[in-house]
């Protein structure tokens, strides 16, 4: 019974509220950087409400079940990951063996659901966007897993999130050492690609004219995709905070430092987003398999040496 409570309240509601707020901060800061006024504070919520009120058109010849189920699958996996992370953050004795691997697997499903949605709509532009998403997934998963390996090594080879949190409570945050810092840098850039933000938003706002894999979605399908992307804007930095910065604690002064950690990561994402042009897909693949993997391997070697 308690699990349903965790699932709904922590996993869905709290994440959705913080995610929508983060998306509003993103749009407002981008508008201010471009010397204009941005949208009002409830704008992301109004967008999703409006989309739920429009009709849903399914293209003729598209596979109906896949087309309608793809956004739901993505949203479910994000809610699952979020409830897992919150449960571990509140009480670090609640983790089970191997839940880090479960979280890593579940985090690939949102990107795959966008890809499947693109292939299921019978449209050549959507297939093109979906194939680029596929290449992007292949490229950034490798340095991401290598960067996640560093906290595992440093906390005595344990793959339980609770033990990583406990290790950081005793010995100081992982990002304080050299290997942790390098791994955080690599993980930050991989996160930028996973969230599909500039400079790596190749599949989605590809030509700024057609929206890539989401071109045939309208009404409730599009609303679920937007909600999934906004919730991912909270879940991914939260995952990195648990791994590298010791999680969020809510007693006394640690609440302020927790909020500062999250806002700091969001601010870094926005700075990278507003100052860079978009790269091509082959440049992105070369970037992730070249310099990023090298830095991640160096970080792993440093972690093994004990620095």
């Amino acid at each position, binding site marked *: 019974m308690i699990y349903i409570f965790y699932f709904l309240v922590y996993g869905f509601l709290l994440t959705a509220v913080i995610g929508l707020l983060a998306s509003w901060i993103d*749009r407002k800061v981008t*508008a201010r950087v*471009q*010397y*204009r*006024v*941005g*949208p*009002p504070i409830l*704008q992301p919520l*109004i*967008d999703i*409400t*409006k989309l739920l*009120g*429009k*009709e*849903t*058109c399914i293209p003729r010849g598209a596979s109906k079940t896949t087309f309608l189920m793809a956004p739901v699958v993505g949203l479910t996996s994000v809610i699952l990951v979020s409830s897992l992370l919150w449960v571990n953050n509140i009480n670090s004795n609640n983790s089970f063996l191997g839940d880090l691997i479960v979280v890593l697997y579940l985090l690939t499903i949102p990107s795959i659901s966008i890809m499947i949605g693109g292939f299921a709509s019978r449209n050549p532009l959507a297939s093109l966007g979906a194939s680029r998403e596929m290449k992007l997934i292949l490229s950034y998963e490798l340095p991401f897993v290598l960067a996640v390996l560093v906290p595992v090594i440093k906390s005595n080879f344990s793959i339980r999130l609770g033990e990583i949190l406990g290790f950081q409570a005793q010995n100081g945050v992982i990002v304080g050492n050299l290997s942790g810092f390098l791994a955080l840098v690599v993980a930050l850039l991989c996160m930028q690609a996973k969230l599909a933000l500039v400079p790596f938003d190749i599949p989605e*706002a590809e*030509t*700024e*004219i*057609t*929206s890539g894999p*989401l*071109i*045939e*979605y*309208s*009404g409730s399908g*599009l609303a679920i995709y937007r909600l999934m992307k906004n919730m991912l804007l909270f879940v991914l930095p939260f995952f990195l905070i648990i791994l590298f910065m010791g999680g969020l604690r809510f007693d006394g002064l640690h609440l302020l430092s927790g909020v500062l950690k999250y806002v700091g990561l969001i601010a870094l994402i926005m700075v990278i987003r507003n100052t860079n042009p978009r790269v091509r897909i082959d440049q992105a693949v070369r970037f992730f398999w070249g310099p990023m993997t090298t830095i991640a391997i160096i970080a792993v070697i440093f972690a093994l040496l004990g620095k």
Partner: protein
Amino acid sequence: MSLKLKALLKSPWVFHLSTGSCNNCDIEILDCLTPRFDIERFGMILVGSIKHADVLLITGSCNRQSVIILKRLYEQVPKPCLVVAIGECSLSRGMFIHSYNCPVPLDKIIPVDVYIPGCPPKPEAIIAGVVKLIEKIKREKLKSKKR
């Protein structure tokens, strides 16, 4: 007013469609999106796909080839949607009223909600026209509620 309509008026997503214009009205529409007349504060975004659109901005006098495409695109927009006709050419074909290639004006092909005259209309005129559209929708809903 129902929640659906309130949300629609607070975040209308705009799609821009040209049926054979001289491109002056198109440039003025794109001027509206620049930081000087910022329309993102009203929640409007320029979208790329017709399936994401709420408001259609139509310019140009419809010639015989583009009427076919216009009808097909209007069927693909998810309803409820609003149509705005911008510039003289889409109101009544302007100076091309006797041309051999422009048989009918725009509002005999698809239903139009608001007309914005001008050749080309200034961005202030376009914003004023959209505000008038929002007021008109609010008043109609109020009238049908009172009945």
